[in-house]
């Protein structure tokens, strides 16, 4: 990934947010479509993602992704989560337990106009290889299956960028490798900006050389 040619950054993340007695103070710019956010546990990686997704409000700062201002304390801009067009892949998946896989996938799709969508349920199912799971309830899925469905659900919600919070957590090596390949294909085939959170440098080095560090 070359990161020097475009003058317009893909991620511009400046934020200050207090969590308990810890202060998260981040000022980062990245030109790479796939950017990693790394740091030890407790450094505020998930808090940062929640601020970008609009689930938490920074005390001050400015968050711009692919030219869209999501938050700017000086300009009093603070888009609600549903307006940010974010595909957030949470650490624990957070699939809706009362809906089967097909309904989980369709949840965000139905909330967006056809002209906003850029991928169909059929394409997502094929891309992730989850066609045999559509009738199942989330409780019956394995960790790797649930992770793929969560990625599919996010892709179908017409996102303009993805946030991935340690998507390999609690997967064995083989399932982790599958998910990593999916991430590489999202990077290479979908041309979708991704902010990828991890604390494993081997994983990060394989995906990108554009890294934002959070100190503990």
């Amino acid at each position, binding site marked *: 990934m070359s990161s020097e040619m475009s003058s317009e950054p893909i991620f511009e993340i400046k934020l200050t947010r207090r969590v308990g007695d810890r202060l998260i103070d981040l000022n980062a710019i990245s030109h790479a479509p796939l950017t990693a956010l790394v740091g030890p546990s407790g450094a505020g990686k998930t808090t940062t993602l929640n601020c970008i*997704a*609009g*689930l938490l409000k920074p005390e001050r700062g400015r968050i711009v992704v692919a030219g869209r201002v999501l938050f700017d304390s000086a300009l009093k801009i603070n888009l*609600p*989560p*549903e307006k*940010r067009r*974010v*595909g*957030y892949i*949470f650490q*624990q998946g*957070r699939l*809706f*337990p*009362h809906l089967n896989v097909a309904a989980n996938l369709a*949840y*965000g799709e139905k*909330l*967006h106009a056809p002209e906003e969508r850029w991928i169909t349920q059929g394409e997502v199912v094929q891309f992730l290889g989850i066609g045999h799971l559509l009738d199942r*309830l*989330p*409780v019956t899925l394995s960790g790797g299956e649930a992770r793929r469905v969560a990625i599919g*659900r*996010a892709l179908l*919600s*017409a996102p303009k960028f993805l946030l991935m919070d340690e998507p390999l957590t609690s997967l064995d090596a083989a399932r982790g490798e599958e998910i990593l390949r999916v991430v590489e294909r999202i990077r290479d085939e979908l041309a979708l900006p991704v902010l990828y959170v991890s604390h494993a440098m081997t994983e990060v080095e394989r995906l990108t050389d554009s890294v934002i560090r959070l100190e503990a």
Partner: protein
Amino acid sequence: MLLSASEWAIVALSLKVSLVAMAATLPVAYGLAWLLARKRFPGILLLDALVHLPLVVPPVVTGWLLLILFGRHGPIGSFMEDHLGIVLVFRWTGAALAAAVMALPLMVRAIRLSIESVDRRLEEAARTLGARPLRAFLTVTLPLSVPGILAGSVLGFARSIGEFGATITFASNIPGETRTLPLAIYTGLQMPGGEEMVTRLALISVGLSIAALVASEWLVRRSGAKLGQGGGHVL
């Protein structure tokens, strides 16, 4: 077991009063449960205490308070009579109101537990997928709190079937209008030769309560199993 026509009428009246009380209380109870489970605001402790008041105050006092508020000269009662043409005292609707007020705390408690058990992070996930807060509530929180709605409804129904003190105080003991099962049993006990009727009505009353509790536990287990949350013990 054979009941006379007038005894069947008592059972039917009890069922009508309890079903109406339960149905009318459900939305109110859900709203209160949601507020208590999800919101932090000044006065929340006072609201919590008010909701629970009928659980701890003697029912006859609750009935008396209803009489003051909803009686024909009470502030709410006179307004309802003058503007809506509705009179509650000494009517079966009054018995339903008394039962509803007594059932409210139990229903709020069951529903509140169930709302608190809904993972708020699922609501956040719904928001990031494009749902506004109301839609996130309707599509995630509400369906996931169904076990509490079921348990609370059955519990409220059972409580209404057994309601005595507030009913006799507020709605009085009028045959065919407000004489529900407990009131009829009480009346039977005062009558010479009423023992047989009392026995029959008491058995009916116990049977209804057991059926309600079994139904509640079954509904909760069934919906809990479907959601993969294990057996629920909301009661």
